[in-house]
């Protein structure tokens, strides 16, 4: 095999995820079933080889839990706001396409940020420029330059949250210098 | 109480489905129709979830997942197809 081997540590999140899916599909979390799922997931990861996702090697669960909770709160808020907009404003709604340049150049982080933004109703990724890691968002109910600024700040704060969870040390350094400046 | 909840959600889901079907039939473009079909599938999945919650079984859970994946594959395929077909006349 001429392909570059990736270490087990990098592959571990994928394997754990596959085992969880296996258990969930059988709706059976007994040790024997999980063991068989683990064997199967190793076989799958070896046979159906995909380009490895480059993880930064750190994952901070202390930041992940509050991030997930604020994400849920944001989704609820935005959904209610969208419901109100659909009923009250309807056809007269104003939109904007906004470019946001992210700090990170990692594919995984850019993708994760785009996912989180798209999942919050009211903003949507239309186009991605990978070379400069710029997201072009279509956002609902943007009527003034102030709203555009608010949206950009929110996107950057989401990205900051994701960097704290799983960014590299360099990105954390950027965050720190930004905070002090 | 669960019977009342079932009736209320049934009415809400029916109204939502009617709205999505109106958009499918009226939708000015193909993408509008795809989007409305996606929403209709989501409504169907939601209705299955309510049925499972009220009657306390899990028989349809994988069906809900399958429905969402079908919606995903369908809209991605159509979106790619539309983007490819429309670009050619614009260029020439």
């Amino acid at each position: 095999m001429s392909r570059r081997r990736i270490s087990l540590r990098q592959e571990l999140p994928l394997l754990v995820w596959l085992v969880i899916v296996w258990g969930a599909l059988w709706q059976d979390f007994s040790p024997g079933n999980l063991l068989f799922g683990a064997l199967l997931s190793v076989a799958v990861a070896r046979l159906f080889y995909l380009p490895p996702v480059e993880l930064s090697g750190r994952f901070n669960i202390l930041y992940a839990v509050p991030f997930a909770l604020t994400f849920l709160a944001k989704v609820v808020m935005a959904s209610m706001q969208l419901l109100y907009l659909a009923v009250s404003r309807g056809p007269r709604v104003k939109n904007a396409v906004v470019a946001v340049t992210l700090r990170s150049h990692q594919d995984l982080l850019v993708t994760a940020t785009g996912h989180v933004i798209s999942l919050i109703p009211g903003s949507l990724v239309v186009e991605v420029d990978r070379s400069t890691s710029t997201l072009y968002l279509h956002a609902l109910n943007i009527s003034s330059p102030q709203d555009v600024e608010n949206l950009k700040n929110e996107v950057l704060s989401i990205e900051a949250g994701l960097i704290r969870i799983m960014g590299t040390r360099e990105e954390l350094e950027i965050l720190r210098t930004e905070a002090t400046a | 109480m669960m019977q009342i909840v079932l009736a209320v959600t049934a009415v809400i889901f029916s109204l939502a489905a009617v709205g999505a079907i109106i958009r499918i039939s009226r939708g000015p473009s193909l993408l509008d129709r795809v989007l409305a079909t996606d929403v209709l599938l989501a409504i169907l999945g939601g209705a299955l979830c309510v049925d499972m919650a009220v009657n306390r079984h899990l028989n349809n859970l994988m069906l809900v997942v399958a429905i969402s994946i079908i919606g995903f594959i369908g809209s991605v395929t159509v979106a790619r197809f539309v983007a490819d077909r429309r670009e050619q006349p614009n260029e020439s």
Partner: protein
Amino acid sequence: MSPDSTGLDAWVDVLSAVFMIVGATMSLGAAIGLLRFPDLLSRMHAATKPQVLGLFLLLASIGLQMRTWWVWPVLLVAWIFQLLTVPVSAHMVGRAGYRTKHLHRELLTSDELEAVVQKAAAKAAREDGSGDG
């Protein structure tokens, strides 16, 4: 499992009933948004709502009603599948919609992508011209 309407059990029932009704309302909101918003990209915002929050609430109500722990991982996996697929399809449809001009320009207060797209199109046209000779 007969519903003895005392204490915790009743509260769990009430909570799941609220979840179900709010989750169903999300679908209705999406339908209203589909009917009332003016262009494709605004409608897309409405469409993501029942798929994310609505499904979350309905799955949570299933979990509350079943009252066994092993359904929660199953429901979580179902929801995470949804979270992974919804933005991708929304992005694909949105991108196709933007490129095929399915939006009303007069409704946009600012468009920071248009200049970039035009520049790229001009560059592509130039390269096509030089490639043909």
